[in-house]
């Protein structure tokens, strides 16, 4: 019998042990963390809280109920898969980052008050950046810094919101809220940044393709799903989330079609999937919230499986650029097979995990008469098939673009055993959940009966998917399907990396002219300094001082607004 402990500890302790262990022992410690942590979920007592008092504040660092339970299990499965996949990595930075990151995600899921939540929320952002920095290229460093700006901004907004809530009510406990006050809006948007709300989403397709081949597997699991948990906990039934979710399910489809970097395609696909989960939170009925939890659970497995397959391709073949890949199915047959299972799962083919989870959200939409949103999500379902279901496996393994392929692709070998085991386990779970959905449904947070395998539903879903496939085949063969082209596709990042700096530059020129007339030399020196950093920082990929400066400015502004209340 394992003594009771907070779920973060196995991961934090394992992280502490990394510098003092080596070789096989280190691998054993890495694998032990999710196993020991996971065992706790058998017979876990629910609706239990642990309280403590810190400087007069009543804190709840541990609150276990049915919602934290299912996310906790999903996170342990995700942690085990990504640790197994990364087992041969010899990089202490990545191992410590990964372990702390998983621990922080569990800290979020079991936090019962805003102070605990804030600490874990910030830790989630800071530790995960290590998995991007670990690529150790100048681009990755710039990427990691841009990533951190979003993460820190989210943390600052959470602080502001929580502080205002505390000053207004004297309460720090993290329970369901309603949008209305400035405080709840701050909390909502703080969660929204990490959940990839439209216009705040850009850090996902920007940084996830920049992580190490194994690091991005960690990244794709925890941050966004911790945010989904936080929104499901804090804002269930908030109608606005239905529209936000539908937008998120909708627009990434077009970006995914024209994107050439396959890990970026998967990143856009994450936003699309988060959209489904947010629609569930927005509807807020028991079936819908169960659907969100189930979809997050299934998504964690199939999305990490897809990121693992592309990570394996990146490691073995040296690229995930669609125009450079081709014919890898012969050199990496197992990876290709597992990738296809993941791709079919995310596309929600019957007998696979995506089908049994997404169906709940779609049914909830129909039940609550959201006909238009239902049609949008049906379109989004067909779109998933295109970019994640067909594009990823096809361009990853089967395409023959006729262009010269690099030697690294032509000579790539199958992924090592630990990677194959992790992918195989992921693929097994995708099938197991699809074939035996009772197992997943037993973990769901709220009551109610649901059964996805109704004949009419199966047939209509197959029609949707196979006729969508037919459309792709037709467009591909008739040359209507857009060719793969390596490019930068402008997204919301253009606002922060081009528009804002350009605007600031013009404003500065105007101001400088005015002040020059006034002869204020000191002002000019100061503002020139700031402008130079803005210019260098936000504008370019080489963004260091400017980024930090911007984050600091926003930090201060938000805190001032926050404290005024």
């Amino acid at each position: 019998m394992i003594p009771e402990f907070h779920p973060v500890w196995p991961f934090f302790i394992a992280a502490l042990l990394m510098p003092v262990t080596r070789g096989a022992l280190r691998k054993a410690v890495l694998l032990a963390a999710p196993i020991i942590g996971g065992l706790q979920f058998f017979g876990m007592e629910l609706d239990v809280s642990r309280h403590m008092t810190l400087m007069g504040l009543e804190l709840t660092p541990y609150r276990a109920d049915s919602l934290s339970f299912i996310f906790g299990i999903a996170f342990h499965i995700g942690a085990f898969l990504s640790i197994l996949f990364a087992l041969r990595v010899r990089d202490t930075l990545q191992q410590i980052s990964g372990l702390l990151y998983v621990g922080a995600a569990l800290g979020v899921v079991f936090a019962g008050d805003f102070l605990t939540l804030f600490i874990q929320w910030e830790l989630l952002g800071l530790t995960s950046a290590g998995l991007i920095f670990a690529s150790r290229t100048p681009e990755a460093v710039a990427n990691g810094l841009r990533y951190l700006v979003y993460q820190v901004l989210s943390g600052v907004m959470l602080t502001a919101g929580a502080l205002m809530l505390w000053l207004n009510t004297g309460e720090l406990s993290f329970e369901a809220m309603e949008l209305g006050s400035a405080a709840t809006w701050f909390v909502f948007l703080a969660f929204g940044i990490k959940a990839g709300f439209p216009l705040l989403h850009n850090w996902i397709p920007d940084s996830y393709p920049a992580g190490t081949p194994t690091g991005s597997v960690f990244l794709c699991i925890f941050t966004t799903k911790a945010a989904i948990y936080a929104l499901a906990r804090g804002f269930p039934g908030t109608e606005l989330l239905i529209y936000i979710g539908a937008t998120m399910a909708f627009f990434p489809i077009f970006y995914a079609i024209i994107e050439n970097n396959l890990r970026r395609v998967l990143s856009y696909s994450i936003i699309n999937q988060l959209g489904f989960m947010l629609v569930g939170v927005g509807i807020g009925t028991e079936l819908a919230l169960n659907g969100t939890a189930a979809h997050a659970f299934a998504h964690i497995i199939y999305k990490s499986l897809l990121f693992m397959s592309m990570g394996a391709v990146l490691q073995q073949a040296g690229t995930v650029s669609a125009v450079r890949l081709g014919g890898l199915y012969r050199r990496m047959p197992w990876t290709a097979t597992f990738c296809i299972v993941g791709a079919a799962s995310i596309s929600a083919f019957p007998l696979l995990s995506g089908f049994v989870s997404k169906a709940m959200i779609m049914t909830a939409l129909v039940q609550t008469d959201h006909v238009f949103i239902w049609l949008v999500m049906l379109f989004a379902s067909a779109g998933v098939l295109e970019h994640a279901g067909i594009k990823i496996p096809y361009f990853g393994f089967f395409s023959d673009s006729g262009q010269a392929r690099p030697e690294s692709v032509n000579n790539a070998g199958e992924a090592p055993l630990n990677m194959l085991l992790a992918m195989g386990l992921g693929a097994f779970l995708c099938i197991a959940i699809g074939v035996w959905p009772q197992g997943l449904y037993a973990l769901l947070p709220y009551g109610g009966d649901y059964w996805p395998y109704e004949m009419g539903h199966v047939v209509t879903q197959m029609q949707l998917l196979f006729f969508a496939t037919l459309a792709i085949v037709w467009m591909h063969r008739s040359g209507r399907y857009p060719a793969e082209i390596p490019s930068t596709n402008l997204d919301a990042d253009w606002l922060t990396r081009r528009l804002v700096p350009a605007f600031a530059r013009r404003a500065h020129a105007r101001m400088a002219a005015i002040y020059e007339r006034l002869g204020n030399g000191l002002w000019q020196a100061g503002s020139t300094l700031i402008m130079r950093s803005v210019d260098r920082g936000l504008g370019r990929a080489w963004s260091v001082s400017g980024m930090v400066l911007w984050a600091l400015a926003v930090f201060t502004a938000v805190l001032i607004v926050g404290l005024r209340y």
Partner: protein
Amino acid sequence: MNDPAHHSGGWADNPVVRRRIRIALYVLCALLLIVELFVSRTGHNRIESIPLMYAVYGFGSLVFAVVVARGLRALVRRDEDYYDS
């Protein structure tokens, strides 16, 4: 490693196999349309009970998605090193 014969050696590069896969898809699509006639549909809303709705919508969705994506590409495509310059 770069000779064309080497690349076209795998089963999935064989035109016959590719054609068979396509034919299987066509047959499956046709079967799904036939099966629909025999399945009692418990449509929850009006749109769901329109015959062939899912087949048409699935096909139409992808055509729409690709058309819009081509337009989007014309609008947002830049050089790969756009942000580095």
